[in-house]
């Protein structure tokens, strides 16, 4: 690699189309995994949020999922689910569970008891209370979880390249770069991963702002103690 330039710009410009295509694929796979992860963790989180013991067990299990090395997870699924998007999605989705469930449970249980009591007193049904009070107030923590989960997933998609060019997104650049000792490809893969992460992260921050207008009030508290 020494005798090659760190970044071969000609190659980069030659492959803009390719880089764009792989980035898009990368993003789609990551977002699909996070979306599936959110759907699952939301259902699980809502069910276990008011049951602390069950929640502890579920979070423990999702923590165990997290400890399975990703390469092994992808490789082991090939005989079962074949060379499909599903094979790439299952481990990616599984890895989002720990952080998402933990944050959803924390968000739901973190709503002040007096707020819930007030809602009950006003005659909210449990369902309405969940949808209109608990979930909205849990948004900041859920979004925080989504941010970490999606950024981590973007990093993990590259590993899915082990099951073929069609699934690894930018990981294919990294693999090719490694096999052929071509640093440009590795850097392009890594840098684009980070750029995608920035993109998604910023998108979530904006989403959170839109979704929680009440938290945007200017902070005017200068004094303490009500003075």
């Amino acid at each position, binding site marked *: 690699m020494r005798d090659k330039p760190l970044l071969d710009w000609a190659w980069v410009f030659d492959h803009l189309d390719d880089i764009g295509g792989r980035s898009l694929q990368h993003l789609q796979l990551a977002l699909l995994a996070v979306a599936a992860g959110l759907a699952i963790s939301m259902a699980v989180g809502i069910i276990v949020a008011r049951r602390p013991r069950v929640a502890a067990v579920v979070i423990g299990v999702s923590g165990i999922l997290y400890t399975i090395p990703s390469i092994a997870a992808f490789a082991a699924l090939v005989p079962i689910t074949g060379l499909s998007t599903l094979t790439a999605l299952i481990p990616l989705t599984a890895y989002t569970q720990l952080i998402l469930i933990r944050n959803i449970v924390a968000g739901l249980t973190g709503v002040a008891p007096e707020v819930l009591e007030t809602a009950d007193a006003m005659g909210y049904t449990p369902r309405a209370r969940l949808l209109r009070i608990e979930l909205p107030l849990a948004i900041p923590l859920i979004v925080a979880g989504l941010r970490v989960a999606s950024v981590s997933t973007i990093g993990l998609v590259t590993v899915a390249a082990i099951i073929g060019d069609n699934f690894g997104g930018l990981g294919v650049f990294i693999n090719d770069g490694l096999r052929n000792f071509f640093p440009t490809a590795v850097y392009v893969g890594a840098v684009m991963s980070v750029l995608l992460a920035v993109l998604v992260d910023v998108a979530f921050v904006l989403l959170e702002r839109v979704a929680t207008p009440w938290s945007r009030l200017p902070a*005017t508290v*200068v004094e*303490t103690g*009500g003075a």
Partner: protein
Amino acid sequence: MTSAIAPAPSGATPEGGSGRAATVEFVHVTKHFDSGARWSGTPGALNDLSLKVPAGRICVIVGPSGCGKTTSLKMVNRLIEPTSGQVLLDGVDIESRDVIDLRRSIGYVIQQTGLFPHQTVIENVAAVPRLLGWPAAKRSARSEELLALVGLDPAAYGTRYPAQLSGGERQRVGVARALAADPPIMLMDEPFGAVDPLVRERLQQEFLRLQRDLAKTILFVTHDVDEAIRLGDQVAVLERGGRLAQVGTPEEVLANPASDFVARFVGADRGLKRLSLVRVGQLRLREPATARVGEPATSVRDKVTGAFPYVLVVDDDGRPIGCADPDQLTGDGSVTASGLVPASPVLTPDTTLRDALSMLLTAQALAGVVVDAAGRATGVLTIDEIGDWFRMEAGRLRAGPSGTGMPAVG
């Protein structure tokens, strides 16, 4: 209690001036937080505050939300630096003092107590002594002494954590912690704001009792006018925009509000509030006609005067049993314990006029019996006398300030 307070250790207040109390003086202090905004628009801003607090006195700074009262407090220990102006302690500009030393010589108590949740009560109280490098034995001795002083049993409370205390207990620990190094100055920011009224009143009473012994210079922030007049030797009213609206004794502020704002702020019931500043013992009380059971009725009837047309019947120790209508003391009989009107309400010299008035109204009585600590009747207080006091005070205040040695600067 008094015996529990050791003199300040010599190392405790390295530059504390008098050692026990110091004067605090604000000289043309202005603070704005946002240079872009007009000063008056920013909550917490101060506008040309000049105020002098004499050593050993309690100055209560009172005002609506955002008037800058907490800001003024935090300037004394330099948690906030003024935009312009000076704060002097015993005439020395605090800017010239080392900020760390300065802070270690000033006690600080806030509403949320600021107790460290990871430290036990003893450790919390010993925080400043530890910073000052006191040996462990001296620290724990001082902590226990202070806990006892604020009414907490060191053996029962010392090893607890803040989370294991009630709100009132936490405040007591907060005060003990602020007193730990015997600082000449205490800053207290709504220290009793978060506890229920009963606890608050008890804490206020104990606070005043402590202050009688300790005589610290205390700057006390509250938004509660009642608290201000109850605790303050001096009351400084700040208005929105950080301007000093009035400073004076509680009586002065209540009797002669300097502006519409002050009048509104102290409330339409400021007359009643003034009553709470005066205690029954401060008035010259009327001697009632008294009689013991068995005394001849005729001699008793002659003692009765117009202002209190009853006979107060007392037991052998002088404690009131009840009142008798002289007209019902028939012929040549003697005074008996039966048929007496209960001698209510019973007042003590410590009862405020406001409470006394309230008790009289509640009992639908024109007069109450005042008893001393042993329960012996020492006099009676009538509603007329309360009215007389008001008239007299009005004349006195018109003649000029009360001369408590607190010039209203600013």
